[in-house]
């Protein structure tokens, strides 16, 4: 990889691995741009690549990290390469060790690579505990070969438990470990290092997992959500405009108006379609599993309710509770939260979305109209998942669209089997940070994708 063209192509491969979308046309633009600038000036070279390859402000951090790691002097490149090779070696050794340790009576256990990766990340004490369990069961009296599936299942459920305990950062690290490598050491080490640096750049609060938000950050979160919510109001009113944006001539009014000119159409009158504002209904999960997100969900409810008109807010756990009036009557978030926590019977209970949705349909039927956007904020861990999916199916026919903001990281969705059946009737978005919320609210939410 020595020529400039090779380097550019390699660099673009790295960016693509980091999640930046770059088309062939943009690659050609980048190469063309380099013929117009002084390639020996690093700042100019960087600006040329950035302006032709990066078309989203959010991708700039990934670009900067990758550029600073890739376009370096040969000595630095050599050092990076050595570090990468030793990391790869360490990873290989850990994998071999895991294979050696996860055995039953000397035979390897059939465990997926995902769970093996989880095992590698466990604290030494926990690994020791699992090894002791395998050792004891392997050497126990009357333990036969046919016990292996039972042992495998026990181990899998234990590792799955640990997988659920992983933080979003750990999950991202696991996803990075499973990322398909380019098979070129020089490129792979940049992808690995740049991915590890994360993609912030603007306000760090935007990228923070909302379960880790501190008490003193709540006013900032509330203010940011309010700002985002105002974006939702403008977007939605526009999106509900009827078809045919071209102004139509109003024949009746034009004839009346032009009577004074003897019927000659000199002054035309136009008519436009009426803009319909949608109704928004929010159903927010405040059950025990969502307690850690309450510093995100309550400011979200408060922010949306104080900015958007035509909004109805509900919270649910084992049952549904209407909370619109709490937000309508007060401007003080702290006061609203206190009142809500004191008066609500739902906070911290179990979850039954089916009952909540059924109650919404029975008692608030008038809210579910073809112009209603129904937001569900929940981690999708609920009792009666099949009944919930059925209820979602019924409600999806009554409202404009159901939008589900899921506080679980996307990597974790496959572990909740109900999510796939819920997704058939709603648009589900990963939403555990303000950056996610920003992205969601900039989409055209009323249009079916």
């Amino acid at each position: 990889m020595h020529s400039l063209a090779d380097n550019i192509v390699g660099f673009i491969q790295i960016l693509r691995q980091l999640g930046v979308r770059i088309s062939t046309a943009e690659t050609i633009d980048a190469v063309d741009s380099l013929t117009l600038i002084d390639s020996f000036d690093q700042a100019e070279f960087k600006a040329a690549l950035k302006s032709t390859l990066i078309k989203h402000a959010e991708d700039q951090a990934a670009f900067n990290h990758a550029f600073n790691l890739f376009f370096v002097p040969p000595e630095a490149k050599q050092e990076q390469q050595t570090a990468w090779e030793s990391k790869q070696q360490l990873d290989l050794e850990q994998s071999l060790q895991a294979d050696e340790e996860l055995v039953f009576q000397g035979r390897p256990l059939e465990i997926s690579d995902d769970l093996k990766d989880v095992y590698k990340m466990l604290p030494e004490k926990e690994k020791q505990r699992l090894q002791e369990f395998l050792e004891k069961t392997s050497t126990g009296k009357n333990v036969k070969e046919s016990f292996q599936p039972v042992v495998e299942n026990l181990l899998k459920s234990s590792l799955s438990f640990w997988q659920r305990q992983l933080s979003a950062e750990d999950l991202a690290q696991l996803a990075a470990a499973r990322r398909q490598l380019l098979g070129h050491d020089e490129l792979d080490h940049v992808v690995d290092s740049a991915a590890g640096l994360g993609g912030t750049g603007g306000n760090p609060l935007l990228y923070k997992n909302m379960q880790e938000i501190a008490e003193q950050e709540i006013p900032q979160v509330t203010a940011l959500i309010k700002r985002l919510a105002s974006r939702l109001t403008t977007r939605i009113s526009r999106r509900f405009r009827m078809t045919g944006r071209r102004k139509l001539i109003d024949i009746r009014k034009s004839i009346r108006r032009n009577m004074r000119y003897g019927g000659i159409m000199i002054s035309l009158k136009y008519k436009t379609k009426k803009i319909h504002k949608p109704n928004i209904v929010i159903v927010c999960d405040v059950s025990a599993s969502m307690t850690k997100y309450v510093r995100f969900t309550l400011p979200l409810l408060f922010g949306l309710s104080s900015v958007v008109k035509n909004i109805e807010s509900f919270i649910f756990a084992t049952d549904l509770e209407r909370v619109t009036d709490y937000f309508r009557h007060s401007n003080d978030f702290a006061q609203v939260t206190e009142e809500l926590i004191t008066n609500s019977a739902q906070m911290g209970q179990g979850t039954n979305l089916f009952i909540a949705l059924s109650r919404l349909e029975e008692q608030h039927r008038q809210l579910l109209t073809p112009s209603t956007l129904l937001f569900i904020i929940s981690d999708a861990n609920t009792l009666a998942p099949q009944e919930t999916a059925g209820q979602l199916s019924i409600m999806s026919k009554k409202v404009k669209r159901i939008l589900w903001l899921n506080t679980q990281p996307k990597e974790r969705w496959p572990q909740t089997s109900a999510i796939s059946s819920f997704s058939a009737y709603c648009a589900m978005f990963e939403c555990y940070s303000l950056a996610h919320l920003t992205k969601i609210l900039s989409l055209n939410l009323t249009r079916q994708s």
Partner: protein
Amino acid sequence: MNKQLQNFTADQLKDAFEAQGYISDKELLTTVYLAIKLEKPLLIEGAPGVGKTEIAKVLSNIFNTELIRLQCYEGLDENKALYEWNYQRQLIKIQMSRENASQKLTEYDVFSPEYLLERPLLKAIRAEKRAVLLIDEIDKTDEEFEAFLFEILSDFQISIPELGTVTANHIPIVILTSNHDRELSEGLRRRCVYLYIDYPSIEKEINIIRTKIPEATEKLAIQIATAVNHLRHNLTLNKQPSIAETLDWTRALIAMHADHLDPALVKQTMGLLLKNRDDLLAFQKDLGADKLCGAVKQTNHHQACNCHGAASDKG
């Protein structure tokens, strides 16, 4: 102008921007230079008031060409952006021809360029000189209009059913601006060269104040830039103060004969920086004029110490 455009260099562009009083950096200049040379639209994103629109104005001054502006808004359609037939004039012509029996009127007579009302896009395409076309706040339009726009920006030609295809004499310099209110389509982004303008650093903002308002003393400029930077980074505001607001604040302080910031002045003039009741309340509650002036003094003192340190190291 076209010869001028073909032959100009990046260094000349830098000098021209400086001559126009637009304080820029290498990234901005290289991006603008490439957009002009590659004949591609330049998409500029950033918070309101960071100087996106100004780039188009500066370019039209530099190349001494017309600035054609299409201000986007909710519900903007092709009639307002491209062209419209002048119905009233056509009707009068038809009426006149009825009264004058000798004048035979055909369809081609009333659908001629004479009866065409040029809107910004068509005007830019038919311009004699390579114009600067500013499509401001593209994120305010609808997706359908955006799709229509990027077709035009690819080919720079328009089909008018009654007249035929109009092809651009010169591909205009196209500047699109967006406040990132809505996600723009990938198709549009792909066709553009992209520039993101963030709020300026303290040093850059001092430079901007001193260039735009030469009457401001160095001390005042430093204090103002530091104060604005402090507000942007330490308060959660609905609307952060933009460069334009910094300049307004500076002008107001000069009008009040101030040569440095003090809490009383800050209290009196904060309305020029923060234009929202909630933001003003947040300022009073979470920071206040005294604390702001204290923070400014502290930052400037640190910077002065660092400068002295560096100077004595060199010495």
